[in-house]
């Protein structure tokens, strides 16, 4: 176990991430230009989608149906557990709890990619259709959490004599999440990849495959800077959210690995599913929560997702889920 942790820490992704944090700690002015950051994320998501689509064209329906089923199940469970823990253990108000649940019920695509790369490095590559599962897990979590939050908020508004206003924004959010950057690029990429198949992939792979790991390393460098910016906010979030940011991914990760193994995924695949379930969204969820539940504190959830859970998963979580998956597989 210790060896895997150490081997993980000395690989490009965590090292680049750590460098980014270090740059912020010494107050360096370095950061990637915003447009390059967005261009890199477009490249990574689209490459992931296309590659996943090509793999999907080989997969049989029987191989994918059980993993897809447990992924949807995970997408429904994680926002509810996150909400329950925030509301009844942490004693946060309904909006704050639902806001955090939207972050923790959804997925971080970068954590997913890092997990996939990790499995390749340790020689237990995950199934090729994993990116398809990523798209299945992306949106139910946000919607279930926001729905819980909006219902509670409408109740509170009605009790206060106001009008129930959260309904319209929930529809707008549904549209926003389904047409957001991640969904268009990933789902679109899957369709493109699946339609063009292996021969089409050969013609674009010099660009989308050869550069992938390098681009990912550069992206993680900037993620380090972005997470480093949040370190100052850690003081504000308090000990509960700190524990939540580490323990919630462990609980969701274990659940993901268990369900993945049960659905017949390989150890690598189950570990990647665990990492997906454990990860918290910091791109799709924050604006969706801000628009639907304006009274939720946006700093708390985002800081927990970005400055606690994301580093935890990248540095230690992924090897832990892999270790669990190996034990379960035996």
């Amino acid at each position, binding site marked *: 176990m210790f060896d895997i942790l150490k081997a993980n820490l000395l690989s490009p992704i965590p090292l680049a991430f750590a460098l980014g944090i270090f740059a912020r700690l010494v107050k360096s002015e370095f950061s990637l230009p*915003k447009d390059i*950051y967005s261009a890199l994320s477009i490249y990574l998501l689209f490459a992931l989608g296309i590659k996943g689509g090509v793999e999907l064209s080989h997969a049989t329906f029987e191989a994918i149906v059980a993993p897809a089923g447990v992924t949807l199940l995970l997408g429904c469970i994680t926002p509810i557990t996150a909400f329950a823990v925030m509301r009844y253990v942490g004693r946060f108000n309904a909006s704050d709890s639902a806001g955090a649940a939207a972050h923790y019920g959804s997925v971080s695509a970068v954590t997913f990619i890092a997990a996939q790369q990790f499995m390749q490095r340790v020689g237990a590559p995950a199934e090729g259709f994993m990116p398809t599962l990523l798209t299945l897990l992306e949106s139910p979590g946000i919607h279930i959490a926001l729905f819980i939050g909006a219902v509670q908020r409408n109740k509170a508004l009605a009790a206060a004599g106001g009008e129930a206003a959260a309904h319209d924004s929930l529809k707008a959010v549904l549209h926003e999440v389904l047409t957001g950057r991640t969904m268009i690029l990933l789902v679109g990429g899957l369709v493109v990849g699946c339609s063009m198949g292996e021969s089409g992939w050969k013609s674009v792979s010099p660009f989308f495959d050869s550069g992938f790991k390098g681009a990912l390393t550069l992206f993680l460098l900037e993620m380090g800077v*972005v997470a480093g*910016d949040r370190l100052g906010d850690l003081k504000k979030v308090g000990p509960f959210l700190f524990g939540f940011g580490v323990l919630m991914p462990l609980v969701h990760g274990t659940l993901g690995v268990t369900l993945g193994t049960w659905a017949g995924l390989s150890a690598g695949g189950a570990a990647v599913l665990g990492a997906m379930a454990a990860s918290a969204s*910091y*791109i799709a969820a*924050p*604006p969706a*929560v*801000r*628009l639907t539940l*304006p*009274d939720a*504190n*946006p*700093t708390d959830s*985002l800081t927990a997702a*970005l400055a606690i859970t994301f580093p935890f998963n990248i540095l230690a979580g992924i090897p832990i889920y892999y270790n669990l998956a190996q034990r379960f597989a035996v």
Partner: protein
Amino acid sequence: MLTYPFKLVTIIAEPVLEPRITQELRKLGASGFTVVEGRGQASRALHAAEIQGINVRIETIVPPDVADRIVEHVAKSYFADYEVIAYLSDVQVVRGEKYTTTPKRPAP
């Protein structure tokens, strides 16, 4: 040169609100608007984006009655929960008719 008195409404807001506010400006009777992105920090310093510190400044030139409606609407809808400020200034414009429209529907 002959100029006409109008109001310049300036709204500085969190970027998530941009699509909503600009749509509402049209409904409230603004004939156009300009949006500029910038850096800054407000009193509450809440950030709901992975990249910090980006705000949008939305500007529109409108007749005084429309300006009042806009500011009232922004205050009522957003001041409580969001990082938003709005203010009015006097401006003189050359083509008065350019900044006047009949609202498409009555103010909400």
